[in-house]
């Protein structure tokens, strides 16, 4: 497996439960992380996100004020935040398929069902660092590509329309996405 230098990563942990924050912090420090900031609800999480500029956000789903899904939607606003591409790992006691799909559709990068394990968390962090997925921007979605793999046996309508254009290289992406129609 790829080796990650956790000391080079800055984490933001958002969970309303102090015990769970302590557990996450302990695991992250155990991995070797030095910078792990915390917030106890979605609102303060969003504020901390803007303030600390974390490399990876780990958030709970069920929280007061606004929950992890709403927080993800706020972060995944092109132009509204300094880093709408930040990897978001959602921790949740919810594990039903419909919930996981909802998290994916909100723009969550990785989903980790509780109970939390060191191995599960480590694998997801390695995944977002070493194997980042491209982002997809449509009229109704902005987030990591929800297709993790290409299924050659897929039968059904192609929901994405083709008409490939040139690859555009640009330095300041945020300027582009902030522009009308960008």
């Amino acid at each position, binding site marked *: 497996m790829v080796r990650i230098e956790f000391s080079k990563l800055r984490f933001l942990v958002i969970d309303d*439960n102090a015990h769970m924050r302590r557990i996450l912090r302990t695991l992250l*420090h155990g991995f070797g992380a030095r910078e792990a900031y915390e917030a106890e609800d979605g609102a303060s999480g969003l504020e901390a996100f803007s303030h600390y500029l974390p*490399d990876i956000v780990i958030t709970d789903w069920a929280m007061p004020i606004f929950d992890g899904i709403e927080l993800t939607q706020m972060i995944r606003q092109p132009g509204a935040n300094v880093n709408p591409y930040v990897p978001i790992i959602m921790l949740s006691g919810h594990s039903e398929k419909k919930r996981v799909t909802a998290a994916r559709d909100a723009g969550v990068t990785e989903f980790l069902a509780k*109970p939390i394990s060191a191995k599960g968390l480590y694998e997801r962090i390695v995944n977002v660092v070493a194997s980042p997925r491209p*982002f997809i921007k449509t009229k109704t979605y902005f987030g990591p590509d929800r297709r993790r793999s290409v299924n050659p046996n897929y039968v059904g309508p192609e929901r994405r329309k083709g008409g490939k254009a040139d690859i555009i290289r640009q330095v300041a*992406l945020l300027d582009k996405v902030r522009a009308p129609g960008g």
Partner: protein
Amino acid sequence: MASKEDSAAITTYADYEVIAPQNKLRNAISDEPAAPGDDPVARAEQALDQLSFEFSSWMDEECDRLGRARDAIKTDGFSPKRREELFHAAHDIKGEAATFGFPACAPVADSLCRLVEFAPDAKRIPMQLVDQHVDAVRAIIREYARSDAVELAGRLTERLREVTDDFLVQENRDRPEVIALIGGPSIVPGQNPR
């Protein structure tokens, strides 16, 4: 590490764009092989183990919180705020029980979460059924040292879940989408109790 100077490659199609942001986290990928015996997962598990002496008291705190949420409903009724407090307390126990060393407690907390979440009219939730769940959580934790604790917890959970699901199916008889959700599978291995 994130900055406003991120660059990205954008491929534009008819109705969508594929954006490949610059992966600045790649700086954290080490080219050096791990030192012999260096296992970050094992290190983290060891750190968690050192914290584990606190887990029992943390579980008691979570139980007290659940009890307070139940008592508040008895005092104030099933207001949206009280309903949310009860749900969150049960939901946290569901998620933490295994980590804290009480895995057999999680399914009861899950059943209570379902009862609170899927009842279309909270005022119709039988308070006795709430009491039974809260008391079951407490009893399972209190008796966890018993050799048959897990088996007893399993039987208790099964019965509470049956009664809860019967109630929810009856209450949601006109909401097939909720019935599907209630009976829907978890995609997490080992989390499909019925």
